[in-house]
């Protein structure tokens, strides 16, 4: 849709219109260069508004020049070419240039093809009509350029090619070097020597002209392609092949339709469509239209770009909005499902807790409370277990008199016993008393369950750091044999 365009084949006598879009085309007819033809053409344009238009001019009034110009770019190139076109073609209105290649040697200059329609007056009514109807004309190009694209479609490998096309307007001979147009001429249909046999002569003359102008090297062999769906050029092939300067090949309708991918009957009815179809989808290399004629197309391009941008923005906005909205709907549905799930969980919870008894504590503290009660109920002090080793030791030491006994839990599973005692028959012999106490300590330490036995106080403190005092006069009091022991025992619990 966006690539649809009208291709006009303009000759001094008439104008043909091809409605082209990729993969599809229609021949809309021909309109003579008369008042009626112009009116009908206007009606056609009104029926096809806002379609870009390319005008392909097929006329004998054309001129081509190959020029080598210094390699410049930008505005300098534009000015250089403008000056050159004015210098070469004087005041011609329809002129154009095409930078074909860059020289490989020397200054590496640019090779240009300059072209013009030397007489463009016949085009003015058509151009005026296009301009009046605000048709976006995007170019005027010579027929030889359309034929160049046709040559490219035919995939001709030869370097020097002369394409001879016979259409209703006459015989067009175009010379291409490496597939690029160098020269073209049209021998009009109204020329007297338009007989089939004369085509070979015209080709030979053209070859001589090209050689003379040094457009074609002298030693070059010219490969001639004869394109004529009516078969009028068939006779020229044998005549040309007899000359070693030529190699000739006929391009039949079948190979042409295959190269262009268009129906054979369609092309047979209007052979002029072939070059138009070839150039329709291509970018324009040689444009002869003055700048002011292209303004409508510039507007058209800007408008088309803006409209496309608006469409893209709208489509992107719509897509993103739709994606967000759809995602939001999905999330909303999930939320509704979760809400129902939550409600179900709450109902389940309510059903469970409604049967709970009244408790003075939290349910999760029931177990720990019971465990704590069990733990606290275990007696850390097992008196029988504590008394047993003491009783056994005291039984074998009857001279020990216990004054007091303190029992206390010291750590988990351990008890501390503090034993206050004295000797029953102390006679002042501290050495003997200490020996008895040592004996008791040893027996206690060996008793089962006793882990440590420590002497807290003794009848006499012989430690070198202590102050020791006493007397040897008078009676000996039993209290002087007082001593204290501290024991650590393992309790059964």
């Amino acid at each position, binding site marked *: 849709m966006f690539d649809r365009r009208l291709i006009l084949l303009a000759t001094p006598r008439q104008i043909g219109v091809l409605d082209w879009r990729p993969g599809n085309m229609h021949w809309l007819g021909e309109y003579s260069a008369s008042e009626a033809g112009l009116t009908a053409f206007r009606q056609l344009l009104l029926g096809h508004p806002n379609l870009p238009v390319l005008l392909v001019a097929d006329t004998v009034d054309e001129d081509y020049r190959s020029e080598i110009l210094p390699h410049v770019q930008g505005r300098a190139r534009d000015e250089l070419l403008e000056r050159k076109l004015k210098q070469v073609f004087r005041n011609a209105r329809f002129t154009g240039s095409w930078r074909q290649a860059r020289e490989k040697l020397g200054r590496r200059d640019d090779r240009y093809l300059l072209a013009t329609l030397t007489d463009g007056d016949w085009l003015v009514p058509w151009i005026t009509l296009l301009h009046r109807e605000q048709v976006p004309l995007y170019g005027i190009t010579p027929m030889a350029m359309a034929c160049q694209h046709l040559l490219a479609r035919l995939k001709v490998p030869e370097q020097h090619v002369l394409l001879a096309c016979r259409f209703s307007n006459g015989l067009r001979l175009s010379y291409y070097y490496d597939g690029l147009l160098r020269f073209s001429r049209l021998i009009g249909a109204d020329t007297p020597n338009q007989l089939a046999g004369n085509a070979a002569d015209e080709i030979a003359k053209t070859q001589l002209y090209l050689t003379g102008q040094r457009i074609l090297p002298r030693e070059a062999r010219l490969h001639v392609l004869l394109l004529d769906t009516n078969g009028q050029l068939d006779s020229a092939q044998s005549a040309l092949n007899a000359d070693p300067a030529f190699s000739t090949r006929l391009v039949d309708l079948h190979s042409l339709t295959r190269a262009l991918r268009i129906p054979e009957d369609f092309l047979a009815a209007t052979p002029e469509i072939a070059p138009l179809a070839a150039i329709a989808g291509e970018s324009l290399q040689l444009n002869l239209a003055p700048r002011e004629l292209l*303004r409508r197309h*510039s507007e058209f391009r*800007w*408008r088309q770009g*803006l*409209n496309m*941008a*608006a469409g893209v*923005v*709208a489509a992107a*906005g*719509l897509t*993103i*909005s739709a994606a*967000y*909205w759809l*995602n*939001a*709907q999905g*999330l909303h549905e*999930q*939320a509704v499902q*979760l*809400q129902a*799930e*939550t409600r179900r*969980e*709450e109902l*389940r*919870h309510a059903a*469970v*807790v409604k049967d*709970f*008894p009244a408790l*003075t*504590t939290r*349910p*999760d*503290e*029931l177990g720990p*409370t*019971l465990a*704590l*009660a069990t733990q*606290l*109920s275990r*007696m*850390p*002090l097992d*008196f*029988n277990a504590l*008394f047993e080793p003491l009783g056994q030791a005291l039984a074998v030491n009857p001279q020990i*008199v216990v004054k*007091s*006994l*303190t*029992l*206390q*839990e010291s750590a988990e599973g351990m008890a501390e016993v503090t034993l*206050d005692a004295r000797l029953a028959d102390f006679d002042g012999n501290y050495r003997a008393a200490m020996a008895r106490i040592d004996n008791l300590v040893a027996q206690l330490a060996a008793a089962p369950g006793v882990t440590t036995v420590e002497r807290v106080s003794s009848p006499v403190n012989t430690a070198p750091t202590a102050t020791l005092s006493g007397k040897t006069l008078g009676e000996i009091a039993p209290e002087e044999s007082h001593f204290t022991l501290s024991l650590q025992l393992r309790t059964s619990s």
Partner: protein
Amino acid sequence: MMQPPIASLKGSMLLLLVAVLLSAAGIFWSGKQDSGARAALQQQQTAFNAARARQQQGQTEARLIAQHLDAYHDLIARGFVGEENRLAWIEAVQLANRDARLYGLSYTLSPRAAAPAALASGLPLNQTRMVVKMPLLVETDLPRFVAALRARAPGVFRVDRCRLSRISDAPPQPINQPEIDAECELLWFTVAAGGQEAGK
């Protein structure tokens, strides 16, 4: 391409502007819808997680209640859970003394205090210290008394410390006369009920 002919492109530029504005508005609105729905879903997810946790906790609590309720009621009946029952404790030590055929006792109950945290295991555990003084004939009277008290005790208690001291320095006599003074410190434990803190 030539300079853009602004005047003749007003319509297209306006169209582009409208498209941009409408797209921006659409994206803004739908984005807001999306973020709102996302927040609502997040909120609902949180509510669902809480409800499921509550429901699972309820199941767990129901299991715990079924498992421990009877034993817990026993603890309440014994006086371990709830207010302290000093009268019962006093009666218990008196009866235990009589059961052990001892010679009477004196007691002192201290004010209730919070139990050490290491012992409480995170529960509001209180302890009340009771000092019992009683005369004994022989040392083995003490474990007999403790055993009798354990049989009589309505609550939970522990013997924290005991001191046995000979009343006189004379040698033991074969008569039924107490010769040992016993002083024991008992700790009576209670767990505060109804969410009260320990020590209150």
